[in-house]
């Protein structure tokens, strides 16, 4: 008999239907765990399986949907292996030895970080233990299903592939808006699963076949992998508190026939479908010829909820998360100032980037650790897909593994060593691989030479089953001032790769202008020319007005901007006035009142405060500016806040303006010349995920000259104590919002007292009061951010005395 891998996509393959409704009819009570029945009611489970085997399905699922260590902490292995064993018995009893047992894996029921508290590696581990047990018990394939978070689906696929060689199928669920619960679109989910190397992918549960049709159509048009469709018997309805589904077997089969017509060869059912639905489906569809499936070959980079398609409109990859030539960025990397690094990403998103390049390599830091952390943090705040940019394979693997989505990978080149290191990672985790057209012989100086390297890379990629659509070639922009033919060679390379290989292309545009004056001018023209030659994406700074003017103009001219809509909305405000002026989102820039630094801070005007401080820097020393303007202005606002005439948001506006002014001065100051009053640890305690209050306190403390070591939220007491000891910290601030987490605050205080008795502890948060603070043994209770600043001042002036 042909193997399953040889059959999929080439012949009809039918799955089983729902199990929950059937088990309830057999007597399973609401709230009872269905998988428990593998041990307590084996004959019922065999009956369930047999129903579908008799209906004629080719693949049937083990009763293990919710079987994981969270639901079965005691006897998971028994529950899983019994499910597989019973499946084999049912197969024998029904004379269906040809049928295949799918080890069924459903979601854990917990949300992954950063939304929830389940770490990615723990999720992988949870799935891995089910896979190992199920496979050794004799499953024929693994079906990961009903995933509503694509990140969790990724964890399950990796766990499966790391623990067996069986075929892996993965189906996910969408709501009526065609989104997964954590935001992935049909195209995004398909791209991510395809990248992870599943043998088939698709959709199940949540919707009926009718509602699923348009989603299936999108998946078929986005992915090159065989598609599975297992719908419910319609949308759920309730009657007397009971959920039911009401599409009849005939109607179900009719809808499924239409879905099959889209090129879907793997069909079955989910909630509410019964053996009757499945046998009707098989009768209706199996007599039809197996449809020819087209391979759309589209290139997608994706995050967990965002997507960028390459090969249509030219995409912008923001280049600013990169330390090369940037003093402040390097300092931020050394100091682990993540807010600065992430902020650089968000500014580019606001500026119009479609993807963000992430390069955090610096010789003196642990790049792998930093890259993983920055990728996590970026993904917790932006939905833009990322381009992981590193030459260290260890760092690359760590980042790709925890990346939520299908990343761009920057980069591989034609050297054997590079391909050996990078391609296995791209094959395992998926990704859109940026390939530089150079090899052991250097950079070819002709388009023919570069094209030949591209062909060599494609050939090598085939060995790893990396699809050619997932390789994006960098045509290599070389300095035109040293070789006046170089721009033409690059443009010709791009054109040929696009036209003859059908692959996407990318350029780091600015290299072209090294050594020339007015670099942005030539860069923007070069970008437009490259776009005309079919450039798929450009690595640029989206906040550079000249570059964006070139980009927007080229989009308008190349039919990439319908009705010149984007061009108009970007430039209409400028009218016919001379010079470039793009409409940027800077609310404070509109208010053009007063440039005196004191009042800018008092009124919270950020960009004016920046301008005013630059003016002052021409005549005054930074420390004098701080003493004469910043601190008095902050104090005035702070006193107003304490009296109740100024409210929290106004206080924060001033704090933001002061922070911006400090940042300008920091640029002008010699490193180390700033006066720091002291180091303060801030943390939201273990179990608590609220950090807005803590962040407010942080901003205020920083403005008043403290160096804040921000340990984040949900922080382990051990980490707080360790850090306090290691850095000899005099003051720790703890925050908790919930009554339930004040317990961990108390625990943290106890541990700190034991490990570092001389450290003062100030506590705050919505549920805390002075009495509460006294009860749990804190040194002080701060009712708000200003109170914390005042207390810090008292602690540190005491220490000086």
């Amino acid at each position: 008999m042909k193997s399953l891998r040889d059959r999929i996509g080439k012949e009809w393959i039918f799955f089983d239907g729902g199990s929950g409704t059937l088990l309830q009819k057999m007597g399973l009570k609401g709230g009872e765990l269905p998988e428990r029945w593998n041990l307590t009611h084996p004959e019922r489970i065999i009956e369930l399986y047999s129903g579908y085997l008799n209906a004629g399905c080719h693949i049937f699922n083990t009763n293990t949907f919710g079987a994981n260590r969270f639901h079965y902490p005691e006897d998971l292995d028994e529950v899983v292996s019994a499910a597989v064993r019973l499946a084999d018995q049912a197969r024998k009893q029904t004379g269906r030895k040809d049928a295949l047992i799918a080890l069924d894996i459903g979601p854990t029921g917990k949300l992954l970080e950063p939304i929830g508290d389940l770490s990615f590696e723990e999720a992988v581990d949870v799935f891995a233990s089910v896979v190992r047990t199920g496979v050794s018990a004799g499953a024929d394939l693994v079906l990961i299903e009903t995933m509503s978070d694509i990140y969790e689906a990724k964890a399950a696929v990796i766990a499966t592939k790391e623990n067996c060689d069986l075929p892996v199928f993965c189906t996910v669920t969408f709501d009526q808006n065609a989104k997964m619960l954590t935001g992935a679109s049909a195209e995004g989910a398909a791209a991510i699963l395809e990248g992870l190397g599943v043998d088939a992918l698709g959709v199940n549960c949540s919707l009926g076949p009718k509602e699923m049709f348009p989603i299936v159509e999108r998946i078929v048009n986005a992915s090159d992998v065989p598609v599975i469709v297992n719908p419910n018997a319609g949308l759920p309805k309730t009657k007397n508190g009971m959920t039911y589904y009401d599409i009849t077997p005939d109607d179900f089969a009719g809808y499924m026939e239409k879905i099959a017509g889209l090129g879907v060869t793997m069909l079955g059912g989910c909630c509410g479908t019964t053996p009757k639905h499945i046998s009707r489906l098989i009768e209706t569809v199996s007599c039809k010829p197996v449809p020819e499936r087209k391979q759309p070959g589209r290139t997608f980079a994706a995050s967990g909820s965002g997507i960028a398609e390459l090969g249509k409109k030219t995409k912008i990859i923001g280049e600013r998360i990169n330390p090369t030539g940037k003093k402040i960025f390097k300092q931020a990397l050394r100091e682990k100032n993540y807010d600065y690094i992430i902020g650089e990403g968000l500014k580019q998103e606001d500026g119009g980037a479609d993807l963000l390049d992430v390069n955090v390599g610096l010789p003196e830091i642990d790049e792998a650790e930093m890259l993983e952390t920055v990728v996590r943090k970026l993904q917790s705040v932006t939905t833009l897909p990322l381009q992981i940019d590193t030459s260290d394979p260890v760092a690359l693997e760590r980042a790709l593994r925890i990346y939520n989505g299908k990343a761009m990978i920057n980069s591989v080149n034609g050297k054997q060593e590079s391909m050996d290191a990078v391609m296995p990672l791209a094959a395992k985790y998926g990704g859109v691989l940026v390939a530089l057209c150079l090899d052991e012989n250097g950079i070819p100086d002709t388009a023919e030479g570069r094209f030949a390297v591209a062909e060599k890379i494609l050939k090598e990629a085939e060995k790893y089953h990396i699809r050619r659509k997932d390789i994006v070639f960098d045509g290599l922009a070389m300095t035109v001032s040293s070789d006046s033919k170089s721009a033409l060679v690059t443009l010709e390379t791009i054109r040929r790769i696009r036209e003859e290989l059908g692959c996407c292309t990318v350029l780091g545009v600015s290299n072209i202008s090294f050594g020339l004056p007015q670099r942005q001018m030539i860069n923007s023209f070069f970008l437009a020319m490259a776009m005309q030659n079919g450039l798929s994406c450009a690595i640029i700074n989206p906040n550079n007005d000249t570059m964006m003017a070139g980009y927007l103009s080229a989009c308008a001219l190349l039919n990439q901007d319908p009705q010149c809509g984007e061009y108009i909305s970007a430039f209409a405000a400028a009218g016919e006035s001379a010079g470039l002026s793009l409409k940027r989102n800077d609310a404070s820039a509109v208010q053009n009142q007063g440039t005196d630094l004191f009042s800018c801070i008092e009124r919270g005007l950020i960009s004016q405060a920046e301008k005013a401080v630059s003016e002052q820097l021409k005549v005054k020393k930074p420390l004098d500016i701080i003493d004469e303007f910043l601190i008095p202005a902050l104090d005035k606002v702070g006193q107003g806040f304490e009296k109740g005439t100024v409210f929290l948001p106004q206080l924060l506006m001033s704090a933001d303006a002061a922070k911006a002014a400090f940042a300008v001065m920091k640029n002008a100051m010699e490193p180390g010349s700033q006066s720091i009053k002291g180091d303060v640890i801030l943390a939201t305690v273990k179990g608590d995920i609220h950090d807005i209050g803590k962040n407010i306190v942080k901003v205020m403390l920083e403005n008043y000259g403290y160096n804040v070591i921000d340990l984040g939220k949900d922080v382990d007491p051990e980490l707080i104590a360790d850090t306090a000891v290691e850095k000899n910290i005099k003051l720790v601030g703890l925050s908790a919002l919930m009554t339930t987490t004040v317990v961990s605050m108390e625990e943290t205080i106890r541990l700190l007292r034991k490990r570092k008795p001389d450290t003062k502890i100030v506590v705050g948060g919505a549920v805390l009061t002075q009495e509460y603070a006294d009860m749990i043994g804190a040194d002080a209770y701060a009712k708000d951010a200003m109170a914390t600043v005042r207390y810090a001042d008292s602690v540190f002036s005491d220490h000086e005395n």
Partner: protein
Amino acid sequence: MRKADRREIRRYLGMDPLTEDPRIEERITEALGKLEKACSPSYGREYVDLSVEGDTVSFGGIETVSRNLAANLSGCDEVCVMACTLGAEADRMIRRASVISALEGAVYQASASAMAEAWCETVNDLIREEAEKKGKVCHPRFSPGYGDLSLSLQKDLFRIVPITKTTGVSLTESMLMVPVKSVTALIGLGYEECGTSENKCINCTMADECPYRTEGEKE
């Protein structure tokens, strides 16, 4: 969906609910606009039989002792367990805003809270309509964590309304819901209006020390 109550947003921001500062109002408008565009609110609800004896409340296989809940559900024979959420994108937007500045973070936090409340009220409207069809009236919404009702009840409520599958809301180890802008609540269905007020604060045993109430309201 109902509109978010801007007075509540100002209150969460520590401002006087009735005083408008145009600079802050502008930020609130922007935050609400972006949140509305990005969020995908969803909900779930289940009706189960209820009995109340003394301070003991029993429904859907749960038995819990809470004086405040028993008072709220007194006279009801059915309870609706509801859950609703703004979804995961709201969380991301709050985190994003917090990176930009503490003010942005606070404004998004407050705006999303008010939106979650408005969404909860919208779902409550639907449940009221369903109750009317049965000839019943709804009692005021009551959530774990209100008054003396333990937060640990969450686990049971999640069992009754399987919202993890339908809305993606799940519980952390410390019984907090994620995504954070999510609400679970019990709504009693009876034949007479509830004796307690619709003003949640007045019924709450913690009202006097609540940090979210301004001085004027505590009197």
